[in-house]
């Protein structure tokens, strides 16, 4: 372990992150709000702590090893979530205690979108903007942004990049150099965000709302500036735009790169993961819409509108809402949250187990059936005519196992705090899948559940965002053994 280098990288990243607290100041000035000093104090504290980490170790040379990469990634999410909660804690308008602010901050950075705040519509714009920005930074991974902007991490960048990238295959680089790869990802992310903001604005949102919502849409976050979320606008065009960008952001960014680079949109369809993702969205939407219609919840048009939007929003793990889906016939809320386990594609900004893993698992299931018929056949698992290495398949099984084990452990812990089963189950799923809204007591916000339950959910969100093993590895004795 190279603590000096870790401290240098952490300090540096913290200093960069502190700069992101200055943009809300601009918003505050623009709208004439008296919140600037909150952000200034938060900025100063974060900046100084970053400097304290960075200064003594700035001369340290050497490269990050694989282990250091894990430490940096995990510590950075922990440290960042803590410091990210500062403005929320300091704000007079919010009056949040420590755990509430931390919950909000983690929920933002992990792009979960669960909130403890009720009455968003009355909050200062600068604070609302800050929440959206947290999601945007967390969406692509703050480390990727840092690697893209600063080529300072050298080869070590790869270790961090790998620890942070979601999905089963973590070694693929889009371009030979890690800085360039991160840069490409960042540019795609930026383009999507700008396009999304313009589309929202064109569909009738105010400039502030358009930018804010584009942040949380493209990052698959789900924070909104209104209590009623996207439902506030009650505008079909906005809902359609939102659906479109949620679907796009839920696709693998590497796929975006290859398709745009070679100007061949057909590549999207050629990718088996993307195909399954779109297929599941379609089938899920049809089931939801039909069920809504035949159960008499809405009329035909409204069923299609609400059903499709809600399914896309929940399955991609965004968590925007347009109607109170927790009050729909009880099949639907459970069905939707169940689909959020599938989540988005690997290498996207979405959460969940990821379609790519599910695809490989499904193929393995089919393989077992084949084996019964042809006991002597050699049946490698193939994706795009390439054999998936056994190591990857093993890793996916382990991931599934641990995911489910942690899921039920968390449900039990929440039940122990006195929550009912619906609430405990949905809140766990919503945090572990980085989804956001749950059912029962957490349907609209998480303000009413106990402090301990919030702690449990905070860990759940971090575990979900870092895909469990990156975080868990730090709690094993092997990792720390010399």
């Amino acid at each position, binding site marked *: 372990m190279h603590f000096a280098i870790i401290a240098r990288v952490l300090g540096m990243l913290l200093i960069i992150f502190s700069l992101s607290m200055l943009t809300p100041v601009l918003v505050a000035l623009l709208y004439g709000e008296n919140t600037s000093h909150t952000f200034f104090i938060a900025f100063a504290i974060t900046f100084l702590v970053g400097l304290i980490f960075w200064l003594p170790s700035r001369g340290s040379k050497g490269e990050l090893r694989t282990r250091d990469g894990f430490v940096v990634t995990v510590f950075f999410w922990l440290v960042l979530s803590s410091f990210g909660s500062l403005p929320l804690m300091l704000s007079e308008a919010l009056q949040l205690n420590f755990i509430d602010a931390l919950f909000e901050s983690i929920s933002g950075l992990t792009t979960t979108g669960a909130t403890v705040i009720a009455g968003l519509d009355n909050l200062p714009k600068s604070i609302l903007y800050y929440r959206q920005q947290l999601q945007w930074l967390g969406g692509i991974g703050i480390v990727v942004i840092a690697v893209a902007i600063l080529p300072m991490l050298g080869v070590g960048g790869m270790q961090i990049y790998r620890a942070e990238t979601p999905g089963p295959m973590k*070694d693929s680089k889009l371009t030979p150099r890690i800085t360039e790869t991160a840069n490409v990802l960042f540019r795609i992310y930026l383009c999507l965000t700008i396009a999304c903001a313009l589309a929202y604005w064109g569909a009738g949102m105010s400039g502030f709302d358009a930018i804010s919502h584009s942040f949380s849409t493209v990052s698959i976050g789900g924070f909104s500036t209104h209590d009623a979320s996207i439902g506030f606008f009650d505008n079909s065009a906005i809902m359609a735009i939102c659906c479109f960008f949620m679907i796009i952001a839920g696709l693998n960014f590497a796929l975006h790169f290859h398709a745009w680079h070679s100007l061949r949109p057909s590549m999207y369809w050629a990718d088996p993961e993307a195909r399954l993702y779109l297929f599941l969205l379609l089938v899920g939407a049809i089931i939801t819409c039909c069920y809504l219609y035949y159960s008499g919840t809405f009329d035909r048009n409204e069923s299609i509108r609400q059903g499709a939007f809600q399914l896309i929003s929940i399955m991609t793990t965004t968590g925007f809402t347009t109607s109170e889906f927790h009050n729909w016939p009880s099949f639907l809320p459970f069905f939707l949250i169940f689909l959020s386990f599938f989540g988005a594609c690997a290498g996207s900004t979405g959460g969940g187990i990821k379609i790519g893993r599910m695809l490989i698992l499904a193929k393995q299931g089919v393989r077992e059936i084949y084996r019964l018929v042809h006991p002597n056949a050699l049946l490698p698992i193939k994706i795009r005519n390439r054999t998936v290495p056994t190591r990857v398949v093993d890793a996916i099984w382990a991931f599934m196992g641990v995911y489910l084990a942690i899921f039920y452990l968390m449900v039990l812990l929440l039940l122990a705090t006195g929550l009912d089963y619906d609430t405990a189950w949905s809140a766990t799923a919503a945090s572990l899948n980085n989804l956001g809204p749950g059912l029962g007591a957490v349907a609209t916000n998480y303000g009413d559940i106990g402090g301990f339950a919030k702690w449990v959910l905070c860990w759940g969100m971090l575990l979900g965002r870092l895909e469990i093993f990156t975080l868990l590895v730090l709690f094993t004795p092997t990792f720390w053994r010399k």
Partner: protein
Amino acid sequence: MKIVIVGAGQVGATLAENLARENNDITIVDIDANVLRALQDRLDVRTIVGTGCYPDVLVSAGIEDADMIVAVTRSDEVNIVACQVAYSMFHTPTKIARVRSRNYSNPEYKNKLFNDKHMPVDVMITPEQVVTNYIQKLIEQPGALQVLDFADGVIQLVGLRAVEDGPLVGQRLRAFREHMPNIDARVAAIYRKGGAICPTGETVIEDGDEVFFIAAKKNIRKVMSELRRLEKPYRQLVIAGGGNIGFRLSKALEDDYNIKIIEFSDTRAELLSEQLDKTVVLRGSATDQELLLDENIDKTDVFIALTNDDETNIMASLLAKRLGARKVMTLISNPVYADLMQGGEIDIAISPQQSTISSLLAHVRKGDTESVHSLRRGAAEALEFIVHGDEKSSKVVGRAIEDIKSPPGATLAALVREGEVMIAHHDTVIQSGDHVIVFVVDKEKTKAVEKLFSVGFSFF
């Protein structure tokens, strides 16, 4: 620069490491996924698994917009085909292939075969030949740690360890002139206790310093005699290992030296005895004490261990030294071993990758870099530039050495003008067309030196 390297063996991996550090976009292709995974963990490169001469594989490696392909797999044929595919389908500008077989590299066939009409290989490198030449020069200059040629061998850069008994040791460099009024030479760098010193007239050479100096080839021996007592030219050589390098070296030297070569394999030993005329071919193990004693190892001037196994080479060299060989040179591929052994019992550790990389780097570097030599295991570099442009477009033409703003750690050591060697003095004025030899103490400064010698836009 975007570079595709085919083959992640020792040459390929070392090349990738060097080039990736110089901010090139490197993609490595190999058939062994495990080797590539290890490489990807260590270096900032992209790796592609596949056969390096298949168009599909090359496309996924990004050959379409690559500036260069370097094919260095074990197989000559794969390397040549990779270059052919790159040329015919993707018009890759520079194609370098490793070609080992002497049959291909025979000058008689070479020019007919390897041109853009037939087999488009721009540069052929033969690591074995490069290493052979390197060792040959060391043997021709007894006492030298490293000998590098510039301007086709007119001028040489020699590294050696200064020893007390040399007349100049303990004196200022200024005294050079008084000692040798007719000979022009320049000390380019001095390494003392691992650190580099940029020499001035006042610098005192101490016992044990590693001194790099530059002089015309004919004067090298006289200069060396100033820095250490001159050694007798070598006569008796024992080579351990009759592989590619061992064989080439024996072939090149057997007319001038008494050579014994030890080879373990029966069939190979037989082949060697048929192909070599004056060399004594011995079948046996280089680590066999009895064999070495029987062959008068204590009367041997140089013992050269050249098997393809590092451990065997090191062990055989240590044994030979213990038994009384005057000098031992050892081929060590693993850079970690080379660092461990250098300066101990083993007199000279030869790193095959370092010398091969040097011959490749010249083609990768921008501008008019004529040749590049890695020194001290890659820490320092000696470069040869051809100067172009006029006083307006170039930062060096028409200026005296003392007026040129060269980056710290870089020494303009010598120049060659129309075949004539001129050692650089503070008032030497550089002209267009000169070959300038620059010694860079720290490789990081190479970029700045290259920039110094590049021509401004007004030249075009």
